[in-house]
């Protein structure tokens, strides 16, 4: 049911953890629906120097978080804001229809973390 890419990112997730001095943190989802994603960003000179995640959720949720962090690492904030759930899904070589919301959640988590960064920066 899952692509090899999803299984790879589920079993060997990239960028798991927290960033103690993160300057942008976003959390989306809720326990009731079974998925929570929390993204930590370290942004310097409008560049995403580091990104980490923590996720409560199914295989697709963990793989989507992992892939989304990979896709924005080293990118500019502007580029990161352009990340879509479709791009996450494509990079994962597809998700089953019932799991598409996981990629949506990953996109939202990144945007929430960038929003938090902008708010902290007073923008």
């Amino acid at each position: 049911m899952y692509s090899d890419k999803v299984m790879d990112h589920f079993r060997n997730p990239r960028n798991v953890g927290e960033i103690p001095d993160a300057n942008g943190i976003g959390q989306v989802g809720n326990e009731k629906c079974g998925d929570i994603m929390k993204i930590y960003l370290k942004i310097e000179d409008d560049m995403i120097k580091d990104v980490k995640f923590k996720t409560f959720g199914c295989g697709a949720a963990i793989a989507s978080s992992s892939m989304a962090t990979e896709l924005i690492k080293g990118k500019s904030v502007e580029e990161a804001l352009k990340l879509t759930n479709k791009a996450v899904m494509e990079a994962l070589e597809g998700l089953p229809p019932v799991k598409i919301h996981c990629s949506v959640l990953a996109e939202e988590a990144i945007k929430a973390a960038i929003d938090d960064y902008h708010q902290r920066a007073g923008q």
Partner: protein
Amino acid sequence: MMKDIYLDHAATTYTDRRVLKEMLPYFNEIYGNPSSLHETGRKAAKAVATARAQVAAAINAKPEEIYFTAGGTESDNWALRIALAGKDKKDCHIITSAIEHHAILHACQQLEKEGCAVTYLPVDEYGRVSVDSVSQALKPNTVLVSIMAANNEIGTLEPIREIGAILKDKPTLFHTDAVQAMGAVPVNVEDWGVDMLSMSAHKFYGPKGVGALYVRKGIKIVSFIHGGAQERRHRAGTENVPGIVGMGKAIELAQESLSEESARLTTLRDKLINGIIERIPEIRLDGHPTERLPNNVHFCFKYIEGEALLLSLDAEGIRASSGSACTSGALDPSHVLLALGLDHGTAHGSLRITLGHVTTEDDIDYVLDTLPGIVERLRMMSPLFNQQEGGKTLV
């Protein structure tokens, strides 16, 4: 070598090779249609009759009270229709429980659309239906009480005999879905006082696609599937002869090994339950500690999600199951877990491990060696798990 440990026997069992051997001639040697009058047909009819007697003997019924079906779901649906036979649905009341299999629950919901009133009895924290609640829910127009003998997710055994006793002298029919109980615990329709009972062969090492419904003699039967005159004109369609033969053999074998095997599985089950409790903090054993199927282990692990747990176990060669929403493609976790009073978050972290004939103590040891690391790893990944507090408090 890569491990391959099947611990999902509640989902289905393999077909026992002795059962398969019994079935094989009925595909291409004794392939007659049991309705045919010639010798080829008569041989097939004889095989069906033998299987009917085997099934009847296993539950202390008469052969003429056994009707073969395509499985547990058909049996459940049919039982509901039989209870309503010749009655005005709008004046009928059915009592069932909140933790029934969807074959009963969704069929009851359909009957509600057709005008029936249905009471879904709640269960206690262990998943037990209270006998008193059945008495209290009874109305003069209650045509049927349908309570499962054993729950398919959490393994809790329901007080069927006690419910049977209170319904004994009442016109209300009593049906039990014994799909999980058959072959696992003694099933006796007289002792239990049930009027109808559903079973499915693939849960006790028989083939898929065949089941049976027991209907006590004297109860008016309405057909559910219309057509030919099979099953004494009550269930149309050419008999699944190999499947029926397999079901008969499987039930006979299950009866022979039942007491020994249930004792062996209970020991392994309790070793696994106690081992998990000793090794992993912040978990909940679901289902009744003792009044449960000999092969069922069910836990909720806080802060993590069941599908991730299941896939991680699968990667280590352990085949289990979960009641989390993600595994069913639904938005909500299992209705059974919610009926126990669990919150959504906890229910999402569920894991069912069901043992079987092939399960050894080594398998249990392997699960106990493997599971704690997986739970730990997923918890370290979870934003709900507070590492600073050593995982002892909820964030």
